[in-house]
């Protein structure tokens, strides 16, 4: 009996940039979320076809994730943003320091954004959102309306939010 060779694993994203921000630095101002999102988006999109469109999309999505992180208030430490590119996607990974409570919150919130039922869930959340917008609905909207991928990878004392954005 001969065994088939394992198919080659798909190549990972080509790295574009890595940023390290202190949690305390981010908390200095709410506007840091958008400044950071705009900077990263413009940097990543600069050599692409129609950079303005890609910048607008990337900044919109990254800002939403950064605002979520801002509200989630991780403990002291560093937030690391790594952005790379495949043929089809821009992939941004935000590594944030977690304690037990925050790790559980990330699991709960990111667990609610599975693409299969994101649209139905967003529709359902919309009514309650009119009364008091819960922070994580912004993440749900990214998946439900904008076709963005969101996933959580857990490490030792860290949570990694993975944002996958199609080029087009």
């Amino acid at each position, binding site marked *: 009996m001969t065994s088939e060779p394992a198919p080659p694993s798909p190549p990972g994203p080509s790295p574009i940039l890595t940023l390290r921000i202190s949690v305390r630095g981010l908390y200095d101002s*709410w*506007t840091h*979320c*958008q400044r950071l999102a*705009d900077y990263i988006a413009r940097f990543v999109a600069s*050599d692409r*076809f*129609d*950079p*303005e*469109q890609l910048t*607008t*999309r990337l*900044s*919109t999505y990254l*800002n*939403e994730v950064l*605002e979520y992180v801002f509200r989630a208030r991780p403990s002291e430490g560093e937030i690391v943003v790594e952005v790379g590119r495949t043929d089809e996607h821009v992939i941004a990974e935000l590594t944030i320091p977690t304690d037990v409570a925050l790790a559980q919150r990330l699991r709960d919130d990111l667990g609610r954004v599975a693409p299969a039922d994101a649209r139905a869930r967003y529709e359902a959340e*919309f009514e309650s*959102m*009119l009364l008091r*917008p819960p922070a994580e*609905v*912004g993440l749900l*909207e990214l998946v439900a*309306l*904008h076709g963005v991928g969101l996933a959580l990878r857990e490490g030792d004392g860290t949570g990694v939010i993975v944002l996958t954005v199609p080029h087009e």
Partner: protein
Amino acid sequence: MENEQPFSIRFSENDQEVALEGALRPAGAEDFAPVRSRLDHAADAVRGVLYLNFKRLRYLNHTGFAELARFIAACAERHPSLKLKLVVSSVVPWAPLRFGFLGAKFGNTIVEQYDKAFYPGQGVIENDRLVPVLRTQTNIVWSHERELLRRHGLGKRMRIADICCGIGDFAVLVYKEFEPEYIVGVDHSRPFLQYAQQIAREFGITDIEYQFGDATHLFLPSNSFEFVTSRLALQIFNDPSSILRELMRICRPGGRVYLTNEMTAHNYGYPRHESVTWTYQQAVKIAQSLGMDMNFGPKMFSLLTDMGFEDVRMEQIPITNNNTAIDDFARVIESWEEYVTGELSTATQQPPEVVERLRMGFRDHVYAIRSRRGFATWPIYVASGRKPGR
């Protein structure tokens, strides 16, 4: 390009319109309160329809979106007879998705995609079947325009914006001839821009930037280009002034805005001139029914002058079968025949006998071009003006 804009909100009671621009990313309801207060004031002040103009709102976070949804919900209760018309542009990629969602949720809300409604012929003009027409036209015009551009102020190493750049071939030619410091092409047709990108890639050109955009609401910074062009484009919009204002805005003081447009009714061919003349006059009428003014060329001088441009220069590119490669000229007319008797006639539901007569006129024009004793013209008007100040 740096073009981050601060947030602004303006209410025009006269237009019953609230225009929101820039980036709206509040932290919460408290942060949004000043905006909500302006919106409430506008809703209290008007009757019938309140327009919420989001064409230039580039960024909106979900918190802001939720707050807008709450305003709309509150409006439905407080002003049951008031309709809210949300005016959005597809140039802002998230806007049709989000506001479309709101439009479906609230009975008091209508969503209008501005750039689809801007002129009725848009779908016809942006079709990729027009690519051969545009390509042949550029080939024929460039040989004349190359020198003429210098007379209108284009020099080497300038910052250039080509608005309504179509398939981008003019930008490539300018890039090669004038080695600009920076050049950006903007168009509202994705098929055209894809073609432009492909051509640039094939020619090994990586530093022309192409943007999907709306010529009346450009995401380009004010006062930032020394030379702004818009070729054979104003004639296809029903409100050319709004585009010219935008071209003027992005032009640096002392820089020049350069336009070309046609006077289609003056296209001429002899012999068989009656048939040729009828066809072009008819084509002008058909285009007019789609909001286009194909006789716009000679009106540019007035428009530039009225808008406050200085040193307005105007001339004509006199394309004839005596100064242009006959095969190229004929190919242009043949591509018009295909476009006008096909796409354009279908879109405007022309009767078969009209289509046939249109076809004959184009063929007679080609006959005049190719005939040993024939004479044929296609005049293009060129105008430019200097933006005041230094």
